[in-house]
Structures are given as C-alpha cells and as structure tokens.
C-alpha cells in the first residue's frame, strides 16, 4: 500500500497528518514515511534521529570543444534550450538541462559529448522509531529540478509494505511525481476560499492520474459548508475533520505529535487509514 498526502494549498497540515498517521500505524506495523517535499522537507523535525545521507546526482553533458564540429544537432534536439552552439564554442546552461541524455545520442558518433554526474541534493534514511523508517529528500539550494530527488526517495521505499508519501504543496511536477503510482491519496484542506480553490486543482490532478482521493478537513471552525458541498458534488468522502483548537496548534508548533500527547487521537488516525485502504480497493 502506497499512500500520498497532498493538499494543493500550502500550510493546510499535510505533514501533520502524515506524521501522525505514520506514528499511529508504526505502533502496530512497519511504516515507511517518505518526505517528498524536497524543497522544504520537515518531517525529520517530528522524528529526530541519526540519519544516513547519500548524494543524488543527475547526468549532465560535457562538451569536448576540440572534437566538436559545431553542427548544432544537440541544440536542435534539446527542447529545453540548455545548449547553444555558436560558431566556435558551445554554451551549456545546467539549470535548463533535464538530463534526458538526448544530446549525447544525436552528437555524430557521440564524439564531442560525454556525461558527468552532477549533485543536485541528498536523500537521508533514519529509523526514529522501531517500526518507522523515515526517508527525506532534500534539494540543494538553487537547483530547479526536484523530480529526480523525489524519484530516488520513492525508489528507496519500493518493496516496503506500507509507504506514506508527504508531497510538496501545489499541483506541479513534484506533486505529480509523488502521486504517480500511489494507491490512494489524502487531500488535506482547510475551510477557507483559498483552501477550497486549491483543493479543486489538487482533486483535478489526482483524478487525472487515476489516484483515488479522500479528504481531510483541518483547522475546522465548524463552518465547512462550502467544502462539504464541493465534496458531495464530486463524490469525495470527508474521512476526517480536525478541529481548530489552540492545544493542537501548540503541540504541532512544538514539533510534537498530537497522537503521542493525546493518544485518544490514535483511534481517529487508525480509522483514517482503514478508509484509505478501502479507497484503494484493498482490504
């Protein structure tokens, strides 16, 4: 079972739900929690532990200016504008390169281009609790491509029986990459016009990817009518509602876990997981 926690809007409580769900389930079974919000990973703050960190690299082209005939086949091939061939030199823009390797294939005899590995970030693995494996991807500052880090982090969890992926906010490539291949998806929202606006977008993305969706309303003030109406219209189940409470906010902002401080919440998160399993068509 591979479950994604996404939201559309930032700050709705994705990591809060992911951390508490993983904590609760880890009390009874092995859980792998993957922080796919690689531009700003923060799950390790809930689960401090010594981690093993390895570099994530991507191949980038290196031009041999002596062998290059400046034929421009590489430039014509590159859909991202990463290579510009001038009369007597080639300019390479690493931040535009998507590491597809096409330039090395179209270079006549591959003579003038070879690939070298370039570091773009890291993945860290730790075991903060006996039954909990935490994998955190982290993108280096200034690097624009989050997707290869997310792919590496997810690969490290492949084969694990129960995987929970915390996504980045938004609906762009990092979210798509995280949702891809998941059996179900929890969308965490808040009952504000902004929360609902972005929830619509997130529902659209998950639906297009064919990932079954369930909703969690966080920081509910009891006036959730607009969100509930949207969910009814789109046949989406509100699987859990977390109230707007000062104590919950205080626990969260200390970096603690609601389910550890107030164990009565474990039942609600265990029930949330059962609903997710049902969504995915599993047992």
């Amino acid at each position, binding site marked *: 079972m591979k479950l994604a926690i996404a939201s559309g809007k930032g700050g709705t409580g994705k990591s809060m739900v992911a951390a508490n769900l993983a904590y609760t389930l880890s009390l009874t079974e092995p859980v792998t929690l993957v922080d796919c919000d690689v531009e700003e990973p923060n799950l390790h703050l809930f689960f401090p532990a010594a981690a093993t960190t390895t570099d994530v690299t991507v191949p980038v082209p290196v031009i041999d200016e002596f062998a290059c005939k400046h034929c421009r086949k590489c430039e014509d091939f590159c859909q991202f*504008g990463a290579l510009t061939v*001038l009369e007597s030199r080639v300019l390479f823009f690493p931040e*535009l390169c998507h590491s597809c390797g096409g330039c090395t294939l179209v270079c006549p005899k591959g003579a003038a281009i070879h690939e070298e590995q370039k570091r773009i970030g890291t993945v860290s693995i730790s075991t903060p609790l006996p039954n909990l494996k935490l994998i955190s991807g982290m993108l280096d500052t200034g690097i624009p491509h989050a997707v290869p880090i997310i792919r590496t982090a997810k690969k490290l969890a492949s084969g694990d029986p129960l995987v929970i992926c915390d996504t980045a906010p938004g609906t762009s490539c990092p979210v798509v990459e995280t949702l891809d291949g998941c059996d179900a998806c929890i969308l965490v929202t808040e009952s504000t016009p902004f929360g609902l606006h972005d929830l619509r977008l997130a529902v659209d993305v998950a639906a297009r990817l064919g990932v079954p969706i369930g909703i969690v309303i966080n920081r509910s003030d009891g006036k959730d009518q607009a969100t509930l109406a949207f969910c009814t219209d789109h046949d989406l189940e509100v699987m859990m509602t977390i109230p707007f409470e000062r104590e919950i906010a205080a626990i969260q902002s200390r970096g603690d876990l609601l389910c550890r401080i107030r164990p009565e919440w474990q039942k609600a998160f265990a029930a949330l997981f059962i609903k997710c399993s049902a969504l995915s068509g599993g047992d």
Partner: protein
Amino acid sequence: MKICFTAQGETLESPAEDRFGRAPYFIVVESEDGSFEAIKNPYADGGGGVGPRAAQVLIENNVKALVSGQVGGNAKEVLAAAGIAMYTYKAGGTVKDAFDQFTKNTLVRS
C-alpha cells in the same frame, strides 16, 4: 548594421516590448537605410529555456545590437558570447521611438 528591437507587433509603429525571450516580434532594422523586417518570435509562448533560443534567432539573422527592456541571464550570456551589444529601452514608446533614441545614442548599454 542590423539592430533588433523587441516589439509587440510587426511594424515600426508597434509598441516596444519590454521582455526579450517572450517578445512577440523581433523587428530588425538596417541602420544604413532604415529598412526593416519583422520576425515572429517562435519562442514567445515557449515553456522554458526560451532566452538562449531567442538569442540564437538574432545570431542567425546577423544582428549586431539588441534594444529591449530586459534581457534574462541565460540570453545575456549567449548574446555576449556572440558579440551582440545590448541596450536598454523601457520608456513605453513605439519601436520607432526606441530606434530614434538608439540613433541619438541616448540608450544605456547593458
């Protein structure tokens, strides 16, 4: 000498465009006789990495100077490497206004 002006339309009366890579048109003026040619920018609606490719359009057309509102970092690197001089015009006038300022040598080189 060929001078390129970024423009929103196809004529000298068209408003000058502030952006370089996503400018709808490049108006290339021959300074010797004032004749011009409008080139539709094929990358105006491109997804990303349009700057260097738009710069390549100028290189292919043998342009020696560019007048635009703002040129991005990657495009600037290509234009500089190709020896194309860059001048800033963002007064909100037409291509003709920008051309007049260029000929009076009142534009700042960037």
